[in-house]
């Protein structure tokens, strides 16, 4: 058990070093922060305008709640573009450099490798997201009456959970191909599919449509952003993560025999 854990940690540290020593990762972070800052300002202005309109009709309006929802909604869309870029190189790079054989034949089990890699890339994503909380917190501290931070944290938790699911599936797709661009495109297509699946589900209708609709990332992310924690949504996210990890391990396992 301790060996497994130390293996995971070793892989994790190696991955992290890769990210934090790479100019590309910082460039991605810069773009991400620029875009999210831009989105935040838009969401804030929008909310203040709606609040002013609500004042005129005398309707109650929760500006803080609306801001969190609008911003996290935009962040979800932004993540859709950024996550495939993060996951694309996880295995495709190894394959390209020829280090994948080393990984596949190393005494470290495949799922330990994939878990370590997933944790690494997820940590990187969290570092991308955490600074956003700073200006979000400054803004919400100006809310009157004061805001309970639970909602904001639940929303960010949902974002990270969804990111983990996408990254896990993206990692699997990355393990299938040598080209990281192809991996990114495939992941992007998959994520797009999982986002829009709800529209397909409503088209089909009935119990089949319902079952398909349950696979939607958007629906469960939306729930968490609204402040509704649904166990079935959490289970679905965790299922995606496990499925991605398992399939990655399987695909590396298959590699052994394909080459032999």
């Amino acid at each position, binding site marked *: 058990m301790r060996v497994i854990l130390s293996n995971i940690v070793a892989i994790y540290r190696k991955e992290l070093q890769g990210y934090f*020593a*790479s*100019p*590309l990762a*910082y460039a*991605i*972070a*810069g*773009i*991400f*922060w*620029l875009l*999210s*800052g*831009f989105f*935040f*300002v838009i969401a*804030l202005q929008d*909310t*203040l305008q709606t*609040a002013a309109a609500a004042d005129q009709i005398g309707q*109650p*309006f*929760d*500006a*803080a*709640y609306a*801001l969190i929802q609008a911003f996290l909604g935009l962040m979800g869309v932004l993540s859709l573009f950024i996550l495939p870029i993060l996951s694309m190189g996880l295995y495709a790079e190894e394959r390209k450099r020829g280090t994948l054989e080393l990984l596949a034949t190393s005494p470290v089990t495949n799922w330990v490798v994939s878990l370590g890699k997933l944790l690494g890339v997820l940590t990187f994503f969290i570092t991308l997201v955490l600074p956003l909380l*700073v200006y979000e917190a*400054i*803004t919400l501290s*100006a*809310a009157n*009456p004061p805001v*309970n931070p*639970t*909602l904001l944290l639940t929303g960010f938790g949902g974002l990270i959970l969804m990111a983990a699911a996408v990254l896990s599936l993206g990692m699997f797709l990355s393990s299938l191909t040598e080209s990281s661009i192809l991996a990114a495109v495939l992941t992007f297509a998959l994520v797009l599919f999982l986002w829009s699946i709800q529209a397909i589900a*409503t088209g*089909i*209708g*009935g119990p*089949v449509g319902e079952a398909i609709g*349950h696979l939607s990332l958007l629906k469960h992310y939306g729930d968490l952003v*609204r*402040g*509704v*924690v*649904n*166990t*079935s949504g959490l*289970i679905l996210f965790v*299922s995606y993560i*496990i*499925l991605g990890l*398992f399939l990655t391990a*399987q695909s590396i*396992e*298959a590699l052994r*025999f394909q080459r*032999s």
Partner: protein
Amino acid sequence: MKQIPTTWKSFKQSWQWLFWAGPVLVVIGLSAGAVSGNWGAVPVGLTIAGIVLIGVWLVLQSQPGSGFWGRRSTQASTNALLSTLAVVVILGLINFLGVRYANQIDLTENQLYTLAPQSQAILRRLPQPVKVWVFMDPNSPNPNSGPTQALLDQYKRQSRQFNFELVDPQAQPGLAQSFGIQDVGDVYLEAGQKRQFLQNLKSERLVEGRLTNAIEQITSDRQAKIYFLQGHGESPLEGSQGGLAQAKALLQEKNFVSEPLNLVEQLTVPEDAAAVVVAGPKQALFDKEVRELNAYLQQGGSVLLMIDPNVDPKLDSLLKNWGVTLDNRLAINASAQQTVEFGPAAPVVNQYGDHPITKDFGNRYSIYPIARPIQMTPIPGVQETPLLVTSPESWAESEPKNQNLEFNPGSDRQGPLMLGVALSKTAQPTTPTQPSPSPSPVASPSASPIASPSPSPSPSPTTSEADKKPSEARLVVVGNSRFATDGLFGQQLNGDVFLNSVSWLSKRDDQVLSIRPKEDKNRRITMTAQQANLVGWLSLAILPLLGFGAAGVMWWQRR
């Protein structure tokens, strides 16, 4: 000896090609099922046939020795395939259970996404499946569509008996027609054989209070009873000349039971009456009947009076309490609006009062052949709303027998005339049965055998509930009864005038359970200039520059 292996080989080779039919059949079957939405014999048969073909192919491949199964990689990939399948199935099952036994925590401050305890209680003990039909394109841009769906989702999560479906009326015109929908956005409630119109989503979203109350109504087995007074030449409930068969049928559809009432044989108005209708008596009512109706109204009852001209129903003592006077003249409508069919003696109304009965009417028409106007004198405590108002060109004619109808300022009254009025006042709880202390003990045994067969357990909680809150006496007076009779009932808005009046009188649409709509907490963000500056700089400049700067430094170092 050599012949057999060759045929076997060629047979196997042909199977190689047949194998491809397997997946093709599976795909065809699944798509057919998905498209038609009907998993009948054909799609299921195709899918099974495809699976069997694949299975046969696998078995043939597993012939010992050479071939596909002999390879080690095949074994490994079979293992991988099987374990992958197993993991997918396990995850699927876990998710299935997760959805089945889902739990939800609402972290919003005002519990925006949690149903009120009343709604939860009603949903928990739903005796039969209830379905809400929303006739609207699911992808329509209606702003009320999203919140309505979210609300219905919450209901669905509470009870497996509850279901809802969005139907595009253009895509399924047959279904839409069977509900008789009039407009896109109509919402219907269905339970068993009963269907009930709920509202239209055009102007307002579905709210919890209304939906819960409607569910409570449609699933409760007690039906509101509407009594039609008989014995003085009133319109009969059967389908005959001047009958009310159409009205009765539509009342039935709205979950009302129509029954004749004979106040001469029966001592009082039955306790389970939701409303009493007096539809066009030709002779005067007995004093005792008027007294009973009066007593019934005083206890918070509801009466619909439809009185034609040239009849004196002797209801003055009752009407006096409400400030209503029946004008003996005839309403004449000689304006351009008059209908060719009925002539000037059939006023056409397209102005309606602001009242629950007429609120959706707009300026559509309803027709009242041979009607008498009504005059009002305000009485303190009585709320009156004119319902049906004729055009200003109409007048009340005192000599309708006259050949050429014209307005005589001396005896006639210039319009607009009021043909219908809705009145309400709080019932006096101090005199619940004062005028009839003697009949009440007699009445209960006589009334109970009628009421006992089925609804006897249910009315008792109703009355006790009604006793708790101050009840309201309601009266609708219309100076015409023909508008609701067969033939005219279906014309223009006539039927709606009648049905809405009965519906309002029965108090069924009043919210039984008061469920307050969920409201956002009122909260503003008021940033100081400093804070706003800080946020602006952080979000648009400092953080992005940090990222790009670090990238630049790294890149420089790598070089």
